[in-house]
């Protein structure tokens, strides 16, 4: 049967990769991801996982080797964070363009300068246009469940795109929580084996991958990725539902999760571990007879716009929390993406937690109070120290 272990988010990701019986891991250490690749190295060293572990000399090579391993036909996993993800930027496009179903854990961390190892989501949100599916976890159990689901989503023939599973640095990567670990056989039965028909390197059936796409062909390859992204919406939901049935754990509809949105007029849109704090505040206010709500985005790419609109049909004032900032626009990524679809509502952007700045329950309650009176379209930097 399944067992419960009290582990960190990075360990949960490593456990999930082990359960998925990955063939190749190419990885490089970076805080706060490192404990994930250390754990995987332990699994391989102790014979608990039969995989080739390539100890690359950089994240750029980690992604390059991962793309190649997947293009050869192997189930492939890697992990990174922040500067490492930024270093991969170039080849993230290649992974999606070559349609290799690599799964990667990313520990969300701020980008330099100034150098900062603490949490925000600027790193992964800056990669939004690379063609990767992006999923975000709220707690360590969800990290494990998402990584398992990620393999099934990525390898689905209607999708065949790489998937990035994000978890907040330190908040999840270095916090232990009880996590239920299913049995390997059950997980493998759920994901299935990877037998690619579209990308393999086999001398018996030579294939050319990564060819030159001139103006006659390039646009169609981009459109094919967009089509796969749209297909992924349904696949992600279906994989979530199948997972819920088999493992008895559910997260909204797999792409978004609604929390007390039926009666609430003042609502927050947020992503990642902060959703836990917000849910606590919602429960607290409910006891006082006040209805406030949360829309948690679990899948940021593909962005489930229609689902978001539908989930917010009763909301009036929408606070959009961003742990990222597009400098020169004074908006975070989620606001920039979502607000234009919520024209009949008031939307206010709250920039929170950059570089690990603490976000307290008071901050959350303050945002709920502020969004009711704030001006539409405004951006507020929460907790900013002003001279």
């Amino acid at each position, binding site marked *: 049967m399944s067992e419960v272990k009290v582990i960190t988010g990075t360990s949960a990701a490593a456990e999930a990769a082990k359960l998925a019986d990955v*063939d190749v891991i190419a990885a490089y250490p970076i805080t706060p991801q490192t404990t994930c690749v250390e754990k995987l190295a332990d699994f391989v060293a102790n014979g608990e996982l039969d995989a080739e572990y390539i100890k690359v000399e*950089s994240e750029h090579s980690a992604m390059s*080797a991962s793309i190649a391993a997947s293009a050869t036909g*192997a189930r492939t996993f890697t992990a990174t964070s922040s500067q490492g993800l930024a270093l991969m930027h170039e080849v993230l496009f290649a992974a999606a363009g070559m349609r290799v179903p690599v799964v990667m854990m990313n520990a969300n961390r701020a980008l330099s300068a100034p150098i900062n190892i603490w949490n925000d989501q600027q790193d992964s949100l800056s990669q939004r246009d690379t063609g990767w599916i992006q999923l975000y976890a709220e707690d360590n159990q969800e990290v494990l469940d998402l990584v398992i689901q990620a393999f099934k989503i990525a390898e689905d023939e209607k999708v065949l795109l790489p998937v990035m599973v994000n978890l907040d640095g330190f908040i999840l990567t270095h916090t232990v929580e009880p996590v239920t670990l299913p049995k390997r056989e059950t997980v493998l039965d759920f994901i299935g084996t990877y037998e690619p028909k579209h990308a393999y390197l*086999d001398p018996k059936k030579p294939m050319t991958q990564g060819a030159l796409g001139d103006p006659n062909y390039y646009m169609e390859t981009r459109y094919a990725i967009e089509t796969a992204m749209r297909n992924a919406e349904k696949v992600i939901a279906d994989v979530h539902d199948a997972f819920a049935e088999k493992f008895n754990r559910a997260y909204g509809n797999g792409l978004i999760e609604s929390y007390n949105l039926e009666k609430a007029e003042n609502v927050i849109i947020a992503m990642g571990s902060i959703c836990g704090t917000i849910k606590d505040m919602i429960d607290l206010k409910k006891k006082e007879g006040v209805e406030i709500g949360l829309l948690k985005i679990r899948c940021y790419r593909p962005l489930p716009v229609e689902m978001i609109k539908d989930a917010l049909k009763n909301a009036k004032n929408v606070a959009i929390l961003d742990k990222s900032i597009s400098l020169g626009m004074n908006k975070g990524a989620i606001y920039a993406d979502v607000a234009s679809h919520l024209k009949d509502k008031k939307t206010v952007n709250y920039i929170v937690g950059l570089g690990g700045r603490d976000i307290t329950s008071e901050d959350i309650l303050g945002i709920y109070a502020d969004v009711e009176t704030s001006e539409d379209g405004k951006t507020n930097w929460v907790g900013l120290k002003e001279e």
Partner: protein
Amino acid sequence: MTGSQFPREELFAPGHRGCAGCGAAIVARLALKAAGKNTIVANATGCLEVMTTPYPETAWRVPWVHVAFENAAAVASGIEGAVAALKRKKGKYGEEKVNVIAFGGDGGTADIGFQALSGAMERGHDMVYIMYDNEAYMNTGVQRSGSTPFMASTTTSPAGSHIRGENRPKKDMPMIMAAHGIPYVATASISYPEDFMKKVKKACEVNGPAFIQVLQPCTTGWGYPAENTIEMGRLAVETGVWPLFEIENGEFKLNYRPLKRKPIEEYLKVQKRYRHLKPEDISVIQKTIDMKCDEYGL
């Protein structure tokens, strides 16, 4: 291996889009003849990649993959790892050894791909890295690389009234690779096909990383008539500017010794990139070659 024993089968197909007299095409053709069918190729961005795979065409009759410019060695690492895992876990690829060969130009190897190459060599992957060296960034129109020789004129090291072309000597890649302690390092030339193919074969048989730097004259970048590519490669060896050697498990061995080294002038005067050289420049170059040949016992 002699000419009559060359495998007839062409694993690198004709009809690619290389220039007339392209040396890179000769590198790929000979290397695949030597390596044989059971080979997977990783290719860095560059002339060879661009001219052989304009979708939907391909000149490669072996499995081939390209990801980016600076990562051919990392890509080859991933292939080697995946092949090992799939062999062990799923019984794929059968009994015969699968050769993993990476091709990178001099820019993709000595410059931008240097870190990935060093990492792959140090990790001991069972792969062959072939650096096809045409001594500049030819794919983008002849810009200097770390492998451009002293005083060669390129578009970013032009010979002008104040500067005599490239002001730095060519990066010594074979010795840098040998310093990684890998089992096999060699230099080769497309103008000595038996020697080159023998080395590719040996590199494939070696257990662990092998590095071959093959000098590959470039008609457009060096500035000579297309029909002279082979002659140009031969002159490079005959003058001692490109000695053919191998370093096998640390043992240095010279593979070819011209009866009498030709003066470097014969090599330089037939190339546009050296057209600006004055007799005193040529004697400076001659001196550096003499010193290097002394070192190699040539």
